[in-house]
């Protein structure tokens, strides 16, 4: 090995021939997919439990319990959808080796996540108006309340983790040490968080409205 080769970045030297099944997919990307699939099963378990409880209840929302704010949550959903597009642009910028643009779009995506979390906080605890906790939706008092807080809370934790992950990749990009592959991994995680939210939005917010509460 020459001296020049000895200083080559390990990510560049680790080029394996394409795998028969997975082509040039990196092991990190495969690992992320496996993690996302196992995480999906956690959400699937929660959503199935919700469906069973919801279908088996003669009265889902008890008198005195507030309904959910569909228009407001629809806005939060649109924010997450927009952030999913912005993270794709960040990935494209990383592939084009445009560090400034990558940082900008990663920052915009993280901002979308922070906006979503602020909206969820406002919905639970209230900022300008009283939140659900003050309006009588109390954890443990009914299946409606408990499933709502567990499912949206578990998803909120994922959004929080996603924002931290985005900011960590942004910091690494700013230092010039992040690869386009790293941006792709955080983008995959963020898309997953968004995909799950769309299911949560339909099942938790819209089905009760359509079913008459």
């Amino acid at each position, binding site marked *: 090995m020459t001296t020049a080769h000895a200083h080559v*970045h390990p990510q560049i030297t680790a080029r394996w021939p394409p795998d028969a099944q997975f082509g040039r997919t990196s092991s990190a990307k495969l690992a992320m997919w496996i993690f996302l699939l*196992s995480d999906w099963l956690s959400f699937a378990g929660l959503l199935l439990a919700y*469906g069973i409880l919801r279908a088996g209840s003669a009265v889902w929302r008890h008198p005195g319990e507030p309904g959910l704010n569909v228009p407001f949550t629809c806005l939060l959903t649109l924010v997450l*959808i927009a952030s999913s*597009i912005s993270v794709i642009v960040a990935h494209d910028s990383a592939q084009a080796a445009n560090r400034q643009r990558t940082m900008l779009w990663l920052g915009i995506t993280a901002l979308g996540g922070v906006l979503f979390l602020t909206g969820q906080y406002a919905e639970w605890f209230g900022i300008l108006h009283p939140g659900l906790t003050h309006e009588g939706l109390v954890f443990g008092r009914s299946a409606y309340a408990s499933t709502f807080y567990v499912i949206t809370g578990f998803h909120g934790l994922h959004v929080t983790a996603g924002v931290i992950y985005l900011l960590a990749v942004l910091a690494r990009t700013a230092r010039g040490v992040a690869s386009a592959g790293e941006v792709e991994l955080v983008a995959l995680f963020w898309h997953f968080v968004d995909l799950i939210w769309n299911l949560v939005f339909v099942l938790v917010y819209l089905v009760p409205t*359509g079913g008459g509460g």
Partner: protein
Amino acid sequence: MSATAGASVPNRTREYLVMLVVMVVLTILEVAVALIPGHASWTVVLLLALALAQAVYFALYTMHLSRETVALRRMAAGPGLIAALYGLVLIAEAAWRHLR
């Protein structure tokens, strides 16, 4: 940036705008279906179909599964199908108990 950075990347603005529009339209459709007065069971079925369509679109296009190998696509579809099958079994069991 390092590693794979520097490759010429085609301008995909139009593709991303289409993605955004499809996702927004599907979300608005879901809200519209939920607000339409009518038979609750059909509303639920329609909502679930729309949610499923949105999830599949999301996985294929925003998560780029459509550009991945068949093996990876199958690997990703597996747990989704297992969850769906489990859901169907539970719904069938609930319906059977209800009819008994």
